[in-house]
């Protein structure tokens, strides 16, 4: 464990050096994600210029949910961005062999290799939005809820990671699975709004099948209302653990099915 941590630190340091070397690159990336976020907010703003509330939520509450949902998304983006590359081209080009020849866990190595600073855009916006509305929204703040807040975010993040690992691993069978990651990952859009606006089928789908609702709306709902911690927070933890286990299972099955693409 200690060794892994040390390796991780070295790899991250390498990444940061690269960032320092290509400052313009980092700026383009971070600014791009920042503008992307700003447009997301502008969208909510324009909608609310026409209506006082949406499905019983005020503008500030929706912004809080939106802001919260960006934190797990941003953290996953920061830490595990290389999984996209596994799906899109690492396996296809035969470059995955590299990870298999090293004396560390290939999954750990793939993930540790990239430290995606572009994610700063999402994280900064997410945090800023939550702080911005914290004054005008009646948040449920107790010692317990503060602890749960810190506790639940890594689990929400792992839902993203699990989905990327599972869908990325399909590349071991079909060479390139970027489109599957793209398709499934795209469903995170559902997490930004109250699930009560969807039809029952879609609501269940984003709760239990592709559980992005647990990366945004459900945990955020608890911090807004204090309701139902067992489902909103406990559910996040359980779903996260279940999905991570399934994802690791698929990954390992995939690894044993992997045949190098050769060149």
């Amino acid at each position, binding site marked *: 464990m200690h060794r892994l941590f040390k390796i991780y630190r070295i790899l991250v340091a390498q990444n940061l050096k690269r960032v320092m070397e*290509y400052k*313009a*690159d*980092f700026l*383009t*990336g*971070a*600014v*791009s*994600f920042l*503008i*992307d976020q700003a*447009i997301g907010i*502008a*969208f909510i703003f*324009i*909608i609310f*210029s*026409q*209506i*006082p*509330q*949406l*499905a019983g939520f005020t503008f500030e509450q929706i912004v809080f949910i939106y802001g919260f949902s960006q934190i797990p998304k941003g953290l996953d983006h920061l830490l595990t961005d290389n999984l996209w590359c596994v799906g899109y081209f690492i396996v296809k080009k035969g470059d995955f062999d590299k990870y298999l020849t090293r004396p560390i866990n290939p999954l750990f190595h793939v993930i540790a290799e990239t430290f995606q600073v*572009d994610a700063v855009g999402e994280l900064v916006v997410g945090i800023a939005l939550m702080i911005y509305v914290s004054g005008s929204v009646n948040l449920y703040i107790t010692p317990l809820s503060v602890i749960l807040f810190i506790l639940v975010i890594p689990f929400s993040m792992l839902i993203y990671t699990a989905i990327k690992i599972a869908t990325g691993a399909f590349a071991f069978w079909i060479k*390139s699975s*970027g*489109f*599957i990651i*793209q*398709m499934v990952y*795209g*469903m995170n*859009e*559902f997490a930004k*709004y*109250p699930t009560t*606006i*969807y*039809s029952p089928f*879609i609501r269940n789908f984003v709760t239990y099948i592709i559980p992005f609702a647990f990366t945004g709306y459900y945990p955020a709902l608890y911090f807004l209302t204090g309701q139902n911690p067992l489902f909103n927070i406990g559910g996040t933890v359980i779903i996260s653990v279940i999905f991570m286990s399934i994802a690791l299972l698929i990954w390992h099955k995939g690894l044993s099915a992997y045949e190098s693409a050769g060149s």
Partner: protein
Amino acid sequence: MKAGIQSLIAYRMNFLGFAIGGLIYCFVMYYLWKAVFSSSGSDNFMGFSMVDMTLYLFLSNVTSQLTFSSVCDDVGEEIRHGDIAMRLLKPVNTDLSYLANEIGGNYLKFIVSTIPMIIGIEIYRTLAVGNFMFNIGNFALYLVSVILAYLISFRVNLCFGFMAFYVKNLWGMNILKNSIINFLSGMLIPLVFMPEFLRKILEYMPFSSMSYTPVMIYMGKYDTTEIIFRIAVQAVWAILLYALSKLIWFHAVKRLTVQGG
């Protein structure tokens, strides 16, 4: 063109992924707007009913598939890897070779994706409104407008692709480009919902020509004079952007140095 068709077939899974991804997004937006309409308590929102809104969302999706251009990534990658040198060596106009390639793919998309989607949309509209509203004249004008929209989209993407001569983080640029286009073209939110002054500006920008104009024509929201005017705006932008992309190209190609071989 043939090469474009072939590569679309080869990468059909990628196309399928994006097509399904786009549809999912439409559904998110559909439910969001449904909630907005029910919260607002009125069934008419700046001249848009919920049926209009649904048509708008799905037509925007269809239109964006047709006007989608990956030339930004293609050019970017070729510049980065130096493969662009191979294109420069060939005795064909560089941007036309990209264009021909894409038109092939788009032709196929029209057959396998656009037509079924349009049929689906019309079935929905017939059921929702109670009578058959398909207007062949509007559809023909829509196609003219879509072709212009595609040419504009191609040029805009080409200009962004040329940024690879100057910037290295193409992925970031891509995100930036897509989110700007989504917002300014009215794909995210119909321009009529935007504040008056912003709408006026955006209607004359090239982005609205890329999706909003064809969709509004299809929906019959414009009268004849307005249609002629909007299509003229599109044509002007197509020409201006053609000139701009040429300008950047000539400036950039002089700085091009290809490493290795």
